[in-house]
């Protein structure tokens, strides 16, 4: 499943760089597109605003097919307090922009599956594909709007994959 998770993240990261190159995060001294996988980063008590945070949750495997079909849920969380120049009064607009960007990042809803190692990546034989995002209601706390969109990611298990 790691290959599917990694391929999904890299696809979203590269698509975000095209959809909105200005949405970046400065993390540990390096600027990169504003999307990260929470489990791959240092734990933090205060998640950053204005970026997308991926959290992998449920996992199931269907072995009734010719190759096992893995399904894993990905919660995509994002928050915004708006811009300080507008006193945060544009936070609704900023969240709508992030909703729109996310929908663009998730289209088309497939990407080639890659095998990533410390030394690079190699293409695999199948694609990773996913469902349309299910958007949850917005929550608000201390002037910060937060939304979670859930996507189910599917992948056929290839030879050599756990």
């Amino acid at each position: 499943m790691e290959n599917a998770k990694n391929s999904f993240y890299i696809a979203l990261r590269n698509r975000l760089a095209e959809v909105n190159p200005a949405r970046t995060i400065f993390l540990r001294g390096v600027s990169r597109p504003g999307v990260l996988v929470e489990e791959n980063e240092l734990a933090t008590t205060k998640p950053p605003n204005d970026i997308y945070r991926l959290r992998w949750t449920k996992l199931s495997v269907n072995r009734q097919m010719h190759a096992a079909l893995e399904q894993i849920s990905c919660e995509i969380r994002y928050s915004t307090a708006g811009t300080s120049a507008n006193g945060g009064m544009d936070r609704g607009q900023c969240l709508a922009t992030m909703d729109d960007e996310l929908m663009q990042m998730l289209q088309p809803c497939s990407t080639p599956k890659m095998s990533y190692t410390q030394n690079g990546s190699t293409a695999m034989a199948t694609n990773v594909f996913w469902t349309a995002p299910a958007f949850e209601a917005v929550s608000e706390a201390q002037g910060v709007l937060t939304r979670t969109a859930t996507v189910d990611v599917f992948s056929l298990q290839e030879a050599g994959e756990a």
Partner: protein
Amino acid sequence: MTDVNTRSTTAALRMADALLHSLGGSAVALRFPMAAQSGQDAEQLGLSAPAFEDVPLGPAVFRRVRAQIAKDGMATYELLVSASAVNAQMTTLGLSSIAELFAAALGMVVRGSLLSVVGVTASEAFGQAYIYRVQLEGLQGDLL
């Protein structure tokens, strides 16, 4: 003529250092993640961990507080650390504030265990901090 001004801003610093030394004067370290490698997918995918750097701070006095009221298996600790040591490291690292220094750190290494920094308060004399009280949190049993 000898300076006998008791309002000297450095007097409190020297007194705090002497006090911490007399109470054991142990050394602790702030652990910082090194800069990420630009354009490296492996680090963003959790396939390779970043390097870390331990920056020593001392003299310091470490103690456990409210050990019996820990929640979720966590214990709270308190560290008193010399402001002169903290200020020196802040200058060396090119940071502009104490908050920035502790926010950038992953945690504090005490007796080989990594503890999370929960909060930092300063004790001041004549407008200058002479000692920092660092509240730390870690798993019970890590530091018996």
